[in-house]
């Protein structure tokens, strides 16, 4: 079976190369049609193009010719020189190609391992190809299988459970305190990239009540407009604190701007409803002992980074579990492929033997004169029976071993030993 996966991703190619090779959704149909016309070596194909990877999964008539045709096509289509392409692409064959697809779908090959978008992108790519009849039974089965693997990885491992960025970790923590964030009020004190990312994550969770304050009121207004929030004067933000469930601070203040006494007073005013303080400023904006107040939770930048580091370790552990799932699924898929190949291999062997027997028989019988018809039939039966007896054990055994873990290797050896060609 000549399955290949050829592509570039964030590890092998810089964005300048990836963007040149990218296919947009609209021209994928055209590309596939063109590829079919220009490269008849390609029997089935799926094009996966995302911002982090461009990959082509294909079944080809011959690996060498197929890869060559594909590369030539890519160079021409994207007007990119061959050397750049060769330098940045990777090529996986058969089991490696299967394993790669399973890993991509399960988000084990992603920049942020466990991120959920990639599965949807793979599904879209597959659907697009199938609608254009670019896939056949092999790739159909391969992709459907990869979706199951992704689902299995997601449900059986905790790969996606742990946030691995500081701002997302803060959102996860908020959810462990408040559960639903959509009715929560957020106060952003200060500005900066991190506070902005955290705010965006919160908005994505449905938060729509955001207050923004800044020493420079104009900046607060500008930031508030961006987030669809409300700007508050820096002198009066203390008065609004009792309305806030989540407070994120990131100012350049040299001293604490929220002290324990203030937080204690605010929590009293709030009738002890929980508050989550996130202090990403250095030097810190919030007195650390605020964390000691009942129903107050304070995380500074180091705390968040520790959470992320612990999550990374956890994620690596889960990734190892996921790899095991992928491995076993790859063997299962190979088994299915072997089933597809074992019958044709046996037929090929039988045909081959029969052809040899017939031609040898004709040669010999031509030389032997004076044999009665009965004798001729006896010789014919004798040769048949020798061929069948000799072939019986390998045929029975290849059926058996094809079902074992190493079936694929055996089948390859079987075809090689009897010189039956490569399959397709």
């Amino acid at each position, binding site marked *: 079976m000549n399955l290949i996966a050829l592509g570039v991703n964030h590890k092998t190619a810089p964005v300048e190369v990836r963007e040149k090779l990218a296919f947009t959704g609209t021209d994928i149909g055209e590309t596939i049609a063109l590829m079919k016309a220009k490269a008849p070596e390609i029997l089935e194909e799926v094009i996966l193009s995302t911002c982090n990877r461009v990959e082509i999964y294909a079944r080809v008539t011959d690996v060498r010719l197929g890869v060559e045709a594909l590369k030539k096509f890519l160079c021409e289509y994207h007007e990119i020189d061959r050397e750049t392409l060769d330098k940045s692409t990777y090529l996986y064959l058969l089991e490696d190609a299967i394993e790669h697809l399973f890993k991509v779908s399960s988000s084990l090959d992603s920049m942020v391992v466990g991120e959920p978008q990639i599965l949807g992108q793979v599904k879209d790519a597959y659907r697009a190809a199938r609608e254009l009849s670019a896939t056949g039974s092999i790739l159909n089965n391969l992709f459907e299988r990869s979706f199951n693997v992704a689902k299995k990885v997601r*449900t059986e491992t*905790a790969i996606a*459970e742990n946030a691995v960025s500081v701002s997302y970790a803060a959102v996860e*923590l908020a*959810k*462990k*305190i*408040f*559960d*639903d964030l959509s009715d929560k009020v957020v106060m952003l004190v200060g500005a900066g990239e991190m506070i902005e990312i955290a705010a965006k994550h919160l908005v994505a969770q449905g938060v729509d009540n955001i207050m923004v304050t800044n020493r420079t009121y104009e900046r607060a207004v500008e930031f508030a407009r961006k987030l669809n929030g409300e700007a508050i004067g820096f002198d009066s933000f203390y008065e609004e604190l009792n309305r806030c469930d989540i407070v994120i601070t990131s100012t350049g203040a040299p001293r604490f701007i929220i002290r324990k006494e203030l937080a204690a007073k605010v929590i009293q005013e*709030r*009738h*002890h*409803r*929980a508050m989550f303080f996130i202090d990403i400023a250095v030097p810190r904006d919030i007195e650390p002992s605020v*964390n000691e107040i*009942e*129903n107050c*939770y304070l*995380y500074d930048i180091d*705390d968040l980074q*520790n*959470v992320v580091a*612990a999550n990374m370790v956890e994620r690596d552990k889960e990734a190892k579990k996921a790899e095991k799932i992928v491995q076993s699924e790859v063997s299962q898929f190979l088994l299915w492929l072997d089933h597809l190949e074992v019958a044709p291999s046996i037929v090929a062997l039988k045909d081959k033997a029969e052809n040899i027997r017939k031609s040898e028989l004709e040669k010999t019988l031509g030389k032997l004169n004076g044999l009665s018809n009965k004798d001729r039939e006896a010789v014919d039966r004798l040769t048949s029976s020798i061929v069948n007896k000799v072939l019986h054990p390998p045929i029975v055994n290849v059926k058996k071993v094809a079902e074992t873990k190493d079936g694929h290797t055996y089948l390859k050896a079987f075809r090689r030993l009897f010189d039956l060609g490569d399959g397709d």
Partner: protein
Amino acid sequence: MNIFFIIATFLYFLGMVKYLLHLATKNRILFILATIMITLGFVAETIAFGQRSMVTGHGPYTNVFEYCAFLSWTVFGVFLIAEGYFKIKPLGAFMVPVGFALMLIAIAMFDGSEATLPVKAYWLTMHRTLSFLAFGAFTLVFAAGVMYLIQEKELKSKHFGGWYHRLPPLSVLDDMNRMGLTFGFPIMTVGVVAAIVWSSQSYGFIIKLNTSTVLLMIGWFMYATLLTGRVIFGWRGRRAAVMGVVSFCVVITALLIHIG
């Protein structure tokens, strides 16, 4: 003993083991199996009580076996409702052992005796039914409290063990505390009133003070304080969780003394 009590105990045991294993492994199938076991156990115990009542002619209110078995029944009943409503998977690991322990005590205390209810037992029946239902609700408050305290510790200490991911958010646990209390406390109070009415009808208005009665009164007072604190002063979170756990310990101690 009715065979269905034995079947129920066995099913509760299997369910409990599965809930605990689910807590350790987070395997979804274990969780589903556990819920099925407890549901079947609950059905079996209900059948057992039905059959027993037909024989004795009264509800399960007369001896230690009946008390404990009926208490476990209310615990499992409340548990099944709470699990369906809150959809909190680890709840079983905290509530089911309480119910199972009560069931074990019941079976250990079984002596085949069948007491009869005193005449004019209307208020007594009411008192016991309501108190037992309240107990089920308070077990929920207790389980929510324990989970809250563990989760709060994880969040305050900032070092997350396995609990952090397993247990639900604090607000959900606090909600559970509030719900259990809102249902449990009024029922318990009506139950106490029924006890006073019954006692004054039977013996005149004399309250017999023994340790378990005093502890129960303290327990009632603590739940009253907690509910008042919640409604009027906005107590919540850690304070509510601690009080829910401590009050339950007082009530269960009273119960054990009463049995002993």
